[in-house]
């Protein structure tokens, strides 16, 4: 951890190079979880219109990497260069409010990001029929669709998605792949960690297994414990 910017305590502590092109550039990045480096030396570039699928066995560090890219945790080393305010993150937790309706949930995120298009987003994710249903009364897959519809109302170009198709049936997975393609066609970028095949043949695939961090043999001395 670089002693910079109060380590993300008093401001968003990313080692982001905010100036730069429209690309997402990741350079020899190392990320840590629970004080242990899990991945190191990760580098890739994502240009507008490109998608990248991250693969790797359970526990390799996909979630950790995505959270770091989203600026939610600091990187151990390496740099991430991303255009300012252009990235949105979707994790396992959808950020849905059970007592608000489908439409109200989307409207809130649209208002936060200052964009519209709620009706369009619902139509794209096949939620129009459920618009007045409270999120509490959706099935697992319907909730997931709503969580993904949120991406469409953020107006952000880079989508960082952690296992987005969990509990979706085959039809919904295809629907989602269509939405991703449309986003790419509009110049967006998508980064997806997933274990299943999304049918996005145009996407590049990055297997994270080779980047697994060697467990540094703790020698004598205490310094290593405070990496």
């Amino acid at each position, binding site marked *: 951890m670089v002693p910079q910017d109060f380590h*993300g*305590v*008093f*401001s*968003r*502590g990313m080692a982001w190079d905010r100036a730069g092109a429209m690309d997402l550039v990741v350079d020899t990045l190392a990320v840590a979880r629970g004080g242990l480096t899990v991945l190191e030396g990760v580098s890739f570039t994502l240009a507008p219109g490109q998608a990248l699928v991250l693969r790797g066995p359970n526990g390799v560090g996909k979630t950790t990497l995505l959270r770091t890219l*989203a*600026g*939610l*945790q*600091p990187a151990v080393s390496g740099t991430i260069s991303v255009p300012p*305010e252009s*990235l*949105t*993150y979707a*994790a*396992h*937790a*959808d*950020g*849905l*409010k059970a*007592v*608000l309706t489908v439409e*109200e949930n989307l*409207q*809130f*995120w649209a*208002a*936060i*990001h*200052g964009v519209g298009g709620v009706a369009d987003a619902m139509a794209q994710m096949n939620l129009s029929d459920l618009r007045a249903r409270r999120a509490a009364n959706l099935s697992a897959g319907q909730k997931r669709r709503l969580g993904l519809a*949120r991406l469409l109302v*953020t107006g952000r170009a880079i989508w960082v998605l952690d296992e987005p198709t969990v509990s979706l049936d085959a039809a919904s997975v295809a629907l989602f792949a269509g939405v991703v393609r449309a986003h790419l066609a509009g110049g967006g970028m998508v980064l997806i960690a997933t274990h299943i095949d999304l049918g996005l043949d145009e996407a590049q695939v990055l297997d994270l297994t080779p980047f697994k961090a060697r467990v540094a043999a703790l020698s004598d001395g205490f310094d290593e414990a405070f990496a």
Partner: protein
Amino acid sequence: MMALLLRDLRLAFRAGGGFGLGLAFFLLVAVLVPLGVGPEPATLAKIAPGILWVGALLACLLSLDRIFALDFEDGSLDLLATSPIPLEGVVAVKAFAHWLVTGLPLTVAAPVLGVLLNLAGQGYLWLVVSLAAGTPALSVIGAFGAALTVGVKRGGLLVSLLVLPLYVPTLIFGAEVVKRGATGAEVQVPLLLLAGITAGAVAFLPFAAAAALRVNLR
């Protein structure tokens, strides 16, 4: 930010959102204390200002874990942190929503509960004034405590422990205003100090709370 405020208020008013519960708790304290202490009017009148303030404080305290914990659990907080709104703004808006849902109703309802505790004649006015001046501080300080403990599951009691010491000055000056008011003495000094605490807390604590949130999201 307006959208966030409206959403928080809407969530509070929907079923299970907890509006009115703070009030109910305040009422319960005002009922329980005489039940425990005994019914003598003179004793009650004497302890009324202190108990009313302690009750308001506990009612605020108990609703604190709603400020951030729900948003943390369902992932909204992660999303808000990556949204265009600065986290300081999120904290300020949420503390304000908490005050609207808790502190304001408490202030309005306090005189009625004063009757149960046999508060002396002139105390009522100063009870309302002191609560109006002091409860915003309770909400902001509470938001800071809630931000510190947002990662802890069901951290209700932990929040209480962290926040209560911070509430002490507000409590002392608030109760002092009511006590002096009830006996017709001069209230200016404690009232100014109370207002000062509120102003200071509102000005600085959102930054500290946002910092705590960032650490907890990491």
